[in-house]
């Protein structure tokens, strides 16, 4: 009987935290969703009331964000986040893995190197942003660094650049998404073929054909925007990506290094005995075992990049439209312009994007755990 009573006490001890998180996380998310369906902010007199009178407007705020003529900025922000995420991930994973492999070569003073590569992780994004803003002054900083060893000065504009490359028409977005889905399915089909998995081969192949047909015949008819609108990769983001990689590549290095240290030396030794050269040991034995770590790192870094806010704020300022991201636009709309309903709608879009990355991750990692 004693145990039963203690189980109840245990639950009661957890309860305050559950209630707090229930309200502050789930209750508040619910409220944000509700606010995003109202007109809060349209009436200036109501904007800052503690209990504003709100009218329900359905999905109007979302429709404005994705198809409204005034909200091109939000759509460009999504494109910015997309490119930022890709290059930031590639930079952190590549550099992190490279450094981890270098440090895995029985390097003298390894602890010192490790400390140097990881220290930016301890800094605030605001500090990193302030430092790199100075590093990337067009007439100074990195641009004049080559002159100290006698090379000519660079003339990159960095954050001040207004150039946009890889432009595309937002109206074609459904086709691009369809084409990407087709491509992914084709790759999966190829894998099923190589692994000789008959059923998967048919299912995936069928889906690939279906997606291809959709992209060719159906999606071109879908009109998501009544007017053509160009978006693309804003070159000014290169500097922000550089600073973000500087700050967080040490994190992936630490993850990979922990992974490398977890691989039994006996495995590598066996490969060497079989005559594998050192690069072959890495390519055939070590790298395949780092797959799960790469996935974790991609998810953690990916969700950081979706939420990126402080770094951009400190580097380029809050009002620089060229380097805007959704997290920043939400802040500006809500707390500078008092357009709370619109800000809430942006926040909900952000939450959905993050949840799409995080929920499968939580599901996957906790499912394996509860089984033991």
């Amino acid at each position, binding site marked *: 009987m004693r145990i039963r009573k203690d189980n109840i006490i245990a639950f009661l001890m957890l309860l305050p935290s559950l209630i707090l998180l229930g309200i502050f996380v789930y209750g508040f998310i619910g409220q944000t969703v509700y606010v995003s369906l109202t007109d809060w902010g349209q009436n200036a007199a109501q904007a800052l009331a503690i209990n504003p009178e709100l009218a329900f407007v359905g999905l109007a705020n979302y429709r404005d964000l994705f198809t409204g003529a005034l909200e091109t900025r939000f759509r460009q922000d999504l494109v910015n986040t997309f490119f930022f995420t890709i290059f930031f991930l590639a930079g952190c994973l590549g550099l992190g893995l490279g450094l981890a492999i270098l440090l895995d070569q029985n390097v003298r003073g390894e602890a010192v190197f490790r*400390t140097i590569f990881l220290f930016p992780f301890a800094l605030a994004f605001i500090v990193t942003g302030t430092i790199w803003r100075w590093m990337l002054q067009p007439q100074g900083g990195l641009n004049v660094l080559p002159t100290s060893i006698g090379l000519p000065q660079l003339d990159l504009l960095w954050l001040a650049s207004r150039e946009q490359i890889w432009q595309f028409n937002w109206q074609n977005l459904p086709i691009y998404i369809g084409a990407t889905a087709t491509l992914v399915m084709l790759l999966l089909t190829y894998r099923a073929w190589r692994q000789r998995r008959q059923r998967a081969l048919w299912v995936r192949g069928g889906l690939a054909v279906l997606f291809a047909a959709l992209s060719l015949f159906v999606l071109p008819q879908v009109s998501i925007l009544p007017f053509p609108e160009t978006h693309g990769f804003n070159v000014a983001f290169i500097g922000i990506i550089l600073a973000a990689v500087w700050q967080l590549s040490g994190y992936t290095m630490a993850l990979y290094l922990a992974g490398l240290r977890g691989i039994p030396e006996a495995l590598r030794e066996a490969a060497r005995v079989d005559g594998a050269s050192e690069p072959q040991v890495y390519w055939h034995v070590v790298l395949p075992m780092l797959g799960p770590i790469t996935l974790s790192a991609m998810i953690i870094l990916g969700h950081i990049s979706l939420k990126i806010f402080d770094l951009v704020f400190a580097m380029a300022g809050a009002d620089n439209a060229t380097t805007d991201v959704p997290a920043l636009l939400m802040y500006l709309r809500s707390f500078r312009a008092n357009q709370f309903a619109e800000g809430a709608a942006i926040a909900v879009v952000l939450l959905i994007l993050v949840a799409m990355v995080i929920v499968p991750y939580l599901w996957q990692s906790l499912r394996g755990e509860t089984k033991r």
Partner: protein
Amino acid sequence: MSDLSAPTQTSEIEQTNPPQGSSQRGRWRWVVYVLLGFAVLFYLLPVYLVVITSLKAPADIQLATTWQLPETWHWQSYAVAWETFAPKLLNSLILAITATAGAALLGSLNGYVLAKWRFPGANIVFPLILFGMFIPYQSVLIPLFQFLRSIGLYGSLAGLILTHIVYGLPITTLIFRNFYAEIPDEMLEAAKMDGAGFFAIYAQIIFPLSVSGFVVVLIWQFTQVWNEFLFAVTLTRQSSQPITVALANLAGGQAVDWNLPMAGSILAALPTLLIYIVLGRYFIRGLLAGSVKG
């Protein structure tokens, strides 16, 4: 396999493999060191630039001579930055210490319950708690803003402390839960046989074994709260501003003298940097425990 279930009691990053027969690859070793040298340059050049800029007189800061050492060492920037930032640093210190202590104590209790006690629904509750540390805080910001205004805590340090305690709970709970999961159940069973209840087990077994768990959680959470910006910029007023907001305001203005933001950056970075350098091992454990920045 994944971060979330990484054990926190063992530091996994230390070299465990015995040095292998690597000397036969000696011919290529210099390549490794050259590459590492370039990497060191990449990570440390910004530090060099910050330090020398902070020590130049405003008139000496010219874009063309950015990388040269100052002609005269100008220490006043630190005096001025200290004068400007001392109240903000104090705000950050109070905020980070109280919010960290609160979240750590509650997280320790939660972790103990989730690791060692069974109750219906525990498997659903845990992921629901964890999700709270991944959400973009923008998605709770407007209701939080209204809530703090309605209870009169908007703009105060107390409101920000409350916020950080609540949103710190998922990560502290996670780290403690994984930490306590490694304490053998047999120890608890033995104590239960002797008649020890929930609190007695916590006080006599769990808490005394938690020291390094607390160190990991405290330095991790302190760093997170100290560095945080979004809550700080939306929920405080001038008098309760932490250092990150003050620094962003100073550096964000037009036509800045760069010596001051650079000195300010160093002041803002010193506490977390010192923690990282002195307690790096614990810091890395927090990082490997599935911790997330941002």
